[in-house]
């Protein structure tokens, strides 16, 4: 049975590759990436062997502990549960518990992350080559660490599955995870500062971490190298106890899954009345706008576009320590909010059929989407621009910066209206984590996003140049000119974009829908 499950995983992997060439490309890229990471890590581990035992312990325990933590947490937060061998699918087979657990655990090693981790863990034996007595302990520690990683990942995903499959949970996590990502820069600068000042603390921290379930398997060899046999023995006990607890928790969670089946947690959301549909003009364009506005508030993929707006000035503040750079906040936010609708039809997915089946012209569809994005973007961009001007203390630059912001918003909306009627590519479905990337979607998205972005840059060049000139010289005349040109050029681009995009839509809407259907 164990061999069956491992073979099943290999077979699933192979069949996945047979389905499309892009899957092969994806695996090769993942393998290359994993290979690069492994080469780096292995080289580091070999170089590390020349250092003294205390230093080796500090690095191995802290890095290894993070690795274990990553295995436990990342599948739940970012990638979702690995569903290729979802235990719920075995609910109808009578498989005894022990072979099922062993088989699923071993199958968990098959794959790029598992093999990578195994290689890295085993190489720690090389790191201890200056301390021959520690090498066998490093080997035991490597096996324990790998088991802790794989079984821990299975345990957390199985135990949290009822929660994770709940729509609301996934949407909240999706929105929460992005915030630290965007603040990586500031966080790193604070951390780097902290690391520099707390350098002497690291060995103590590593020693303490060695007693935790995350660090214990990695600290084993270090204790042996120091001749602390009792400590080494205790760490074996800690690791084994952790493993036993994880297996017990996993087994218990599996029981619950197999009995409950894959019945998804259901939360019902109710809203009274028609919402935006009651407030927009009762026309097809108004209806499209109301539908898009509803999605801006209920779909995490759009909500994130709004959620990151306050982070832009924060990043500028940390990146450039305030000052004139703050003036870029408004135009940057304008560009981002305008460009959000460049994948609007891809975001619709196959639901787009309602637009194709309806007797509407492309301009109606384009205008409705632009109206929704504009209704959200206009107040946000205006407020952000005025705030940034106030913070920078440059009220003299208010006119050109406002012109630049409004110009960028309208220009980006116009170009995005054409781009989204030209290409659709695979995007995360509504309710999925906005970070889950789709196989084969990345090339098309990269090309269209880059080309669209370049066209946009070329088109907005006049207003950007004029705006910067006005801010730098402080000339009031140039400032007013920048405001007029920004708004005028932007509005023109918006109107032209909606028309061109509309004509393109009229010709291509059925093809776009066919492509979206082929993704499912």
């Amino acid at each position, binding site marked *: 049975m164990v061999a069956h499950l491992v073979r099943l995983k290999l077979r699933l992997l192979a069949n996945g590759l047979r389905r499309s060439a892009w899957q092969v490309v994806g695996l090769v890229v993942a393998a290359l990436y994993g290979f690069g990471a492994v080469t780096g890590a292995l080289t580091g581990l070999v170089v590390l062997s020349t250092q003294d035992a205390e230093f080796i312990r500090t690095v191995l325990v802290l890095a290894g502990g993070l690795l274990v933590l990553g295995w436990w947490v990342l599948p739940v937060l970012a990638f979702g549960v690995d569903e290729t061998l979802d235990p719920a699918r075995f609910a109808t087979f009578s498989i005894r518990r022990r072979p099922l657990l062993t088989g699923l655990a071993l199958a968990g090693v098959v794959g790029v992350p598992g093999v990578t981790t195994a290689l890295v863990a085993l190489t720690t034996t090389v790191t201890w080559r200056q301390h021959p007595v520690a090498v066998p302990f490093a080997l035991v520690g490597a096996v324990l660490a790998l088991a802790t990683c794989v079984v821990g990942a299975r345990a957390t995903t199985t135990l949290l599955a009822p929660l994770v499959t709940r729509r609301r949970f996934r949407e909240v996590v999706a929105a929460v995870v992005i915030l630290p990502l965007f603040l990586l820069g500031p966080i790193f600068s604070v951390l780097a500062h902290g690391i520099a000042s707390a350098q002497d603390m690291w060995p103590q921290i590593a020693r303490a971490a060695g007693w935790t379930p995350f660090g214990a398997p990695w600290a084993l060899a270090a204790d042996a190298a120091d001749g602390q046999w009792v400590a080494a023995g205790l760490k074996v006990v800690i690791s084994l106890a952790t493993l036993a607890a994880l297996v017990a928790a996993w087994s218990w969670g599996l029981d619950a899954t197999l009995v409950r089946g894959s019945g998804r947690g259901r939360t019902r959301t109710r809203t009274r009345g028609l919402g935006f549909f009651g407030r927009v003009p009762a026309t097809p364009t108004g*209806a499209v706008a109301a539908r898009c506005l509803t999605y801006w508030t209920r779909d995490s993929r759009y909500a994130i576009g709004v959620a990151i707006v306050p982070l832009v000035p924060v990043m500028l503040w940390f990146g450039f320590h305030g000052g004139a750079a703050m003036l870029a906040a408004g135009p940057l936010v304008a560009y981002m909010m305008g460009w959000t609708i460049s994948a609007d039809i891809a975001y619709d997915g196959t639901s787009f059929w309602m637009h194709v089946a309806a007797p509407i012209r492309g301009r109606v569809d384009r205008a409705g989407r632009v109206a929704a994005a504009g209704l959200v973007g206009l107040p946000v961009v205006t407020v952000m621009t005025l705030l940034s001007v106030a913070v920078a203390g440059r009220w003299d630059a208010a006119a050109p910066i406002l012109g630049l912001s409004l110009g960028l918003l309208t220009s980006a909306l116009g170009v995005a209206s054409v781009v989204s009627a030209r290409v659709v590519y695979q995007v995360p479905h509504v309710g999925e984590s906005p970070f889950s990337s789709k196989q084969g979607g990345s090339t098309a998205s990269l090309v269209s996003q880059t080309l669209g972005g370049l066209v946009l840059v070329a088109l907005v060049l006049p207003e950007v140049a004029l705006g910067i000139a006005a801010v730098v010289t402080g000339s009031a005349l140039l400032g007013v000119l920048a405001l007029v040109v920004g708004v005028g050029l932007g509005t023109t681009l918006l109107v032209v974009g909606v028309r061109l995009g509309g004509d393109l839509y009229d010709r291509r809407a059925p093809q776009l829908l066919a492509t979206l259907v082929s993704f499912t």
Partner: protein
Amino acid sequence: MPPPDVPVPPALEVRGLWKKFGDKIAVAGIDLVVPVGSFYGLVGPNGAGKTTTLSMATGLLRPDYGQVMVRGRDLWADPVGVKALLGVLPDGVKLFDRLTGAQLITYAGLLRGMDRETVAARTSDLLVTLDLAADADTLVVDYSAGMSKKIALACALVHAPRLLVLDEPFEAVDPISAANIRDILTAYARSGGTVIVSSHVMDLVQRVCDHVAVIAAGHVLVAGPVDEVRAGETLEDRFVELVGGRSNGEGLAWLRTSSDSS
């Protein structure tokens, strides 16, 4: 009644429809004539090309070759004008499921240029008739499969189209709702509307449809009034006879001797 010398154009006429996906020919020259006021059934085994045909007949998928005429007007020559006559329920696609049921019907109505009062009145009528009134304010993503089918049907009906094209409208729908939907559609066809449904359930097609076309491997095998097509047999027997592929029932001998050994 129009004078007999002026022929009434059929509700839907499909001529020489072809569609290829990659190397696979999904629809290979299909011709169909659906008379006005008929309740037309489209039956065929899985993968016969039913969904592809209906998608091309409703403007959702562009045919490689062929013509689609709705009441004498060429759909692919004037998509916006002709789509206004159609009510569509496609299969295998999603809905804008972050809207509530009431919002989704309203959306469908407003997209078709109806005024707010009419949309509101028909939305509440449809919700009550399809037994969805209690879930009017629930997001469609939280609906069951049958409820989603019913709300999609409501979206196809809201603008009172001349021709209804429904792909698998009874799938996953409970028997009581299915009976209600059948009544609605029968009454609609009797009052001059035209309904096309695709289905796997022969029994249902035989009972509710007056015309039927049997499709297999992208071709029309036979089409016409149900009683002509089934020629005295049940539609199911006739279908099996036409399509073939029935195994003789002699296989799986071991299944009949229930073993207690394991």
